[in-house]
């Protein structure tokens, strides 16, 4: 048997191999990224919990939940609009899929804008990455680091949604690609469900 025959055999075996958990490779890669990113966020939140727990007189600077409640509502709603977009793509309704994907991206932009407004308010009161007017400077470090990491994910998600949406509309990407981007977007939403109670609600001034 020649080397070429062996190579051909190898390729055909690889091509016929069952995908892991019957999930396409691109989708599996996204799931692995999500698992890794979960560990990153979990590490940050556990470190925050450790420091908060071991620091006496941890500040509780938040007086209103209106902004964070609105941000939560927008992010949750954007997950639903993403689902509508993916379902439209699965039905091969390109115009609707593109429209709903862009609405989702708009939700992300609104969320980011409200997040920055929240940050500006905190900075206006004197809190920065290395300074905190209410006590331990670690509060500022953790607040801006964790919410900043989440904001970075939202920003990345918005860019991905716009890029994938445009390419899907142009016929370069398929419904699967939109679904994979949707997975990432739902993950960003999922992380927020833990960031809100730990960072905001537990530090509410009573």
């Amino acid at each position: 048997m020649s080397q070429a025959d062996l190579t051909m055999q190898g390729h055909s075996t690889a091509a016929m191999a069952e995908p892991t958990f019957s999930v396409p490779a691109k989708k599996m890669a996204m799931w692995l990224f999500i698992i890794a990113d979960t560990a990153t966020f979990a590490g940050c939140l556990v470190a925050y919990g450790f420091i908060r727990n071991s620091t006496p007189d941890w500040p509780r600077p938040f007086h209103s939940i209106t902004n964070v409640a609105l941000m939560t509502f927008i992010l949750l709603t954007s997950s639903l609009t993403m689902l509508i977009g993916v379902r439209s793509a699965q039905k091969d309704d390109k115009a609707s899929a593109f429209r709903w994907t862009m609405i989702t991206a708009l939700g992300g932009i609104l969320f980011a804008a409200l997040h920055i407004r929240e940050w500006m308010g905190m900075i206006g009161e004197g809190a920065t990455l290395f300074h905190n007017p209410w006590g331990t400077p670690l509060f500022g470090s953790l607040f801006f680091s964790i919410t900043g990491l989440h904001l970075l994910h939202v920003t990345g998600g918005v860019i991905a949604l716009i890029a994938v949406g445009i390419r899907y509309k142009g016929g370069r990407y398929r419904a699967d690609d939109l679904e994979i981007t949707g997975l990432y977007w739902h993950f960003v939403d999922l992380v927020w469900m833990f960031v809100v109670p730990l960072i905001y609600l537990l530090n509410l001034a009573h």
Partner: protein
Amino acid sequence: MTTVAEHKSGGMGKDVIVYLCLLVLAAIQFFIAYQSIVAAQMLVRMMAVAVVEAGLALLFFMHLSENRGLKWFVLIFTVAVILGMQYGWTDSYRLVNGAPWAK
């Protein structure tokens, strides 16, 4: 009439119901924040709600319920990593309550 894909995953109606459940659960978290209870109890209640929220999002929005193998893979991996990170809590209590240099 529903398509095969809609039938398989329950269609938009199911998504809207899950979305409404998530909104209600988020509202419960905000409600807990205004209860007059100690911080530890508040944390437990909020995290319990957050875990249910995350479960709903994973199972229905991310369609993990449709793939049994992947569901267990994600669950076991993630829970193992998160549990592994919990070893430091006792030390954080020691720092604030026990060790003289922490005073």
